[in-house]
């Protein structure tokens, strides 16, 4: 294992020290492993929190700031945070208008956030709503799965919902925007390499030269199928086709296209992939009105990418364009 770390057990807490040092606009509760807006809670604004295992940076801590999240809980690498963290983050984020929990659909995340919401409601009276992101078309929502995973759409949802909260909407309305984003977003990912969980010390799976995994999530797990390595244009087809067959673009809505890097794939390749994706979407008659290219929801140092397509209406577009100021996404201020 080759990593820039000290003791594998300290990776998350030491990275949080670095986040605190690098971003004076953010506060870090090192005890509870929470990154929060230094000016939290914002009076009268619905608080937005999220969290999950670490190893997906900049998600979620890098999306804390004006226009996006109020606080984020960092679990151990690829391990959902514990309820205590979520409770503490909820308290930090509550400005009197309630708190929205943005939860990626993984058994662990869902259960830990659920327990936290039970505790918050019982102990503090803070109003909590939850939205579960499940946008990964690699996984069918059926009796045979834990439902679709929450992947790329999470980033877009945190941004757009953050803008809705900034407009002063109430908790139900903010949660509604979040659910609309989730309903309008679909993703599909692939890996060229595995990644190494620091505590495990070796790659999660073995992926020989000449092969790749299609339909991966963001936890370094193997994907739905292993296929021979293919040129970028074919990889793009494998990702975009299932996304588009699951989203109805006949209404003439525009799309936000998000080409995400899994952590170990450089921008040169991501832009090249984005070109392939854009060509396929154009052929399919999808009008791309906004795009995002880069490593925003990652799987440690895994090489690979995912494609997220979000159907935009005028409101979602306006909320996407609204100012945001976080380490990971920043514009308009």
């Amino acid at each position: 294992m080759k990593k820039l770390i000290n003791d594998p057990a300290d990776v998350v807490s030491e990275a949080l020290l670095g986040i605190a040092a690098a971003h004076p606009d953010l506060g870090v509760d090192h005890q509870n492993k929470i990154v929060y807006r230094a000016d939290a809670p914002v009076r009268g604004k619905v608080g937005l929190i999220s969290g999950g295992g670490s190893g997906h940076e900049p998600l979620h801590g890098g999306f804390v700031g004006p226009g996006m999240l109020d606080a984020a809980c960092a679990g151990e690498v690829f391990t959902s945070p514990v309820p205590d963290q979520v409770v503490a983050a909820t308290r930090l984020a509550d400005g009197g208008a309630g708190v929205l929990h943005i939860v990626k659909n993984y058994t662990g995340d869902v259960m830990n956030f659920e327990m936290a919401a039970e505790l918050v409601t019982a102990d503090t009276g803070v109003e909590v709503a939850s939205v579960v992101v499940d946008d990964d078309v690699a996984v069918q929502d059926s009796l045979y799965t834990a439902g679709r995973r929450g992947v790329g759409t999470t980033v877009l949802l945190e941004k757009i919902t953050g803008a809705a909260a900034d407009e002063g909407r109430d908790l139900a309305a903010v949660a509604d925007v979040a659910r609309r984003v989730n309903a309008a977003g679909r993703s599909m990912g692939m890996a060229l390499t595995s990644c190494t969980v620091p505590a495990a010390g070796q790659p999660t799976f073995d992926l020989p030269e000449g092969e790749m995994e299609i339909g991966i999530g963001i936890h370094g797990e193997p994907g739905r199928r292993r296929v021979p390595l293919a040129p970028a244009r074919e990889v793009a087809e494998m990702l975009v086709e299932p996304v588009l067959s699951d989203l109805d673009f006949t209404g003439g809505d525009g799309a936000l296209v998000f080409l995400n890097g899994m952590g170990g794939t450089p921008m040169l390749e991501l832009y090249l992939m984005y070109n392939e994706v854009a060509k396929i979407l154009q052929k399919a008659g999808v009008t791309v009105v906004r795009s995002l290219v880069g490593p925003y929801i990652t799987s440690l140092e895994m090489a690979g990418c995912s494609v997220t397509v979000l159907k935009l209406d005028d409101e979602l577009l306006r909320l996407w364009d609204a100012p945001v100021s976080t380490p990971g996404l920043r514009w308009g201020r």
Partner: protein
Amino acid sequence: MSAVPTEGAVDVAALRRWIDAFAGDVAEHQEELTRLDSAIGDADHGSNLARGMKAVLAALDSERPATAGALLKRTGMTLVSTVGGASGPLYGTFFLRMGTAAGEVESLDTAALGAALRAGVGGIVARGKSELGDKTMYDALAPAVDAYDAAGDEVGAALRAASDAADRGRDATIPLQARKGRASYLGERSVGHQDPGATSAALLLGAAARTLG
């Protein structure tokens, strides 16, 4: 309301030995658990449980709970607060419910221990909505409590039956296709791999048979 110790009963000290033994087994099998979780999950089950059980030992050392209920609930709360992931809430709920069922007593007889174990497993089902054959820890735990109840009055024999059943349940996860947890994302590719949670659950019952019998 403190219970009168019964012959062959499981007292607080024995329960503590169980927790110690499970913590030891988890530490010993940490790499194996993570390796199993690498094949069909995200390579953290071993480190998750090891971290949690280390915290449990520290909590029990500092608090020294006096009743079965207190000891089991402290174990559960510590797991909930330190493990995370799927197994944190699940094992946490197991011990919390088991502790609630056990009550503030100094020891448990065979029936009370069986009822407490069954309550704990019920907590896992309530949290995880797992069914038999989903390829989860429940596939080791469900047959274990059934075997315990079927084995009669002698706590040692009952726990050995439970442990054997848990081992068989664990092995029986190998051919299954997962329907819960991360492994379900793999679809048919989950077939042929032993479930990590069922493996740690079998360790839990094995430790019980060694220490409570």
